[in-house]
């Protein structure tokens, strides 16, 4: 149940810090890459005990966000990226600058989450499932943070730290709906992978729904 909440929260993650201005809606579709990387192969060479199981696939997703000059979050936001079945869940999490992300270990083995990404370098060390408080990191610089595990080489996760409160993850077909937006001229961006971000200028009007696709 806890996991389901986690996934659903990350999938429809929309922030609306100023609901008085948040009236416009933009929706559309991002053309996602057709071919995706195969799921990773776990190296089990020197593990005496290995469980069976096929690691989950990771269909490509995109993050659509409204770029602009917005006030920073006034409330302290906490999100979670769990380690479950030797994978990050969710594998991609967009957050606003200043967000604290907790990394609960839901496996019955150690994990050691770290990142050497310029936007955030950290190493949480080895920690157990019952570790309290849950190891966490505050993401205070915009950019892409690649999560890895020092024990399980195959594990990869991404946190996209944004300086906007208006973002959403597409579904697997690329569809998105971003609501509660302020009216005005902005740039709408679609982050597809670390090398591909598409953008379009948009004019949002109060009470109107704008249809925009990223071909």
């Amino acid at each position, binding site marked *: 149940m806890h996991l389901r909440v986690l996934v659903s929260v990350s999938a429809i993650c929309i922030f609306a810090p100023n609901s008085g201005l948040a009236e416009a809606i933009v929706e559309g579709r991002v053309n996602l890459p057709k071919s995706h990387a195969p799921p990773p192969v776990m*190296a*089990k060479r020197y593990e005496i005990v290995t469980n069976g199981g096929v690691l989950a696939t990771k269909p490509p997703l995109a993050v659509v966000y409204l770029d602009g000059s917005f006030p920073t979050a006034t409330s302290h936001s906490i999100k979670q990226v769990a380690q479950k079945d030797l994978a990050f869940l969710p594998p991609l999490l967009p957050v606003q600058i200043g967000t604290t992300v907790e990394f609960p270990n839901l496996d019955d083995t150690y994990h050691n989450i770290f990142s*050497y990404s310029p936007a955030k370098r950290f190493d949480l060390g080895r920690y157990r499932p019952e570790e309290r408080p849950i190891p966490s990191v505050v993401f205070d610089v915009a950019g892409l943070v690649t999560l890895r595990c020092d024990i399980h080489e195959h594990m990869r996760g991404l946190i996209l730290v944004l300086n906007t409160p208006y973002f959403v993850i597409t579904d697997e077909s690329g569809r998105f709906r971003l609501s509660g937006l302020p009216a005005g001229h902005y740039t709408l961006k679609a982050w597809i992978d670390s090398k591909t971000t598409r953008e379009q200028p948009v004019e949002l009007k109060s009470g109107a729904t704008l249809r925009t696709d990223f071909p």
Partner: protein
Amino acid sequence: MKLLRGLAFFLACTAYATEPDDFLDQLDTALTIAAFHDNLRLRLSGTIDLEGYHLQQPAPGLIDSRIDNLFNPRLTLFLDAQMGSQIYFFAQSRLDRGFDPSDHGAQVRLDEYALRITPWEDGRFTLQVGKFATVVGNFVPRHLSWDNPFINAPLVYENITAISDKAAPASPQDFVGSFEADAKYEFNPVIWGPSYATGISVSGRLGRFDYAAEMKNSALSSRPESWSATETDFDHPSFNARLGFRPNQIWNFGFSASDGAYFRPEAEPTLPRGRGIGDFRELVLGQDASFAWHHLQVWAEFYEARFEVPQVGDADTFAYYFEAKYKFTPQLFGALRWNQQLFGNINSGVGGKARWGQDLGRIDVAAGYRFTPHTQLKLQYSYQQQTTGPRDTNHLLAAQFTVRF
């Protein structure tokens, strides 16, 4: 000079190669392929190690070099394949100057290959067949360059003793007197590295206990040439086992045992009349413990070994080490290891007792820095001293740069 310049350029490149989707990440993805709706997945990966040693003669451990400054590059390739949820295959091949650092020419070897079947999802039972690292002790999971905080192995895995698997001694005096510390490949340590011998193993977990047992074609002390099934058959197999107890993720304890004939076939003519290879065994008992908590990891192993030596009797030795690694920052770590090996007495053959090896201690200090998730530099200093006999000392400086892909 060109090499140093090239290395400096590479280091500069890696220092900036921190983009998450950098070249090596892309290579990782490109070298993973899948078929049959992802039910068959193969991944090719590897490491490039550039090692340099500044050593004192005779070279310590299993370093086989007559020159004081040794450059020892190594390319290691791994193949991991997952077929469904129950079948896993892996292989390891290396291109280097020898299984252990040496001044010899280049060679290519298939060091490991194994097929693993895990019938149940909970890991209660696993069957593995092939040529693979021993189940004994707790060093194997970190013996590869990327995972090992040091550049070399603990003393018990590389300190050669007077035991030779190539020929039996003619007498106790011959046994002790013929030992030459610089004649590396004529003698054997208690455990030769990770012991990639050929055989079959079963392993699994039952609650807080885990077990592993294997039948291999050669003993723990056997040299790399003996590990291949084409070199050594199963006429005199070695039986090894480890029982582990993990009260929680922080602590892990293990008890190991091994029994195997250690002579190679060419030693047969030198054995006493009427005795065969199977009559002279290496018996090892081991205890291991490990601790991991946040940025600190500690390991310890204790080994009591007995070699049944023709014309001599039982030759006993005890070796242990304590090892700790601590991450000071996300990228910088330090490690410290204390090793000791003590030798028992044998009948001297002239009515008395004689030590069959010189006791020695070694301290290893290392520091490592990970420039990126794919590149790592380690520096190590080791000081070794005999605590009996001539009390010889030995200094070793080593550096290792690793690229993982």
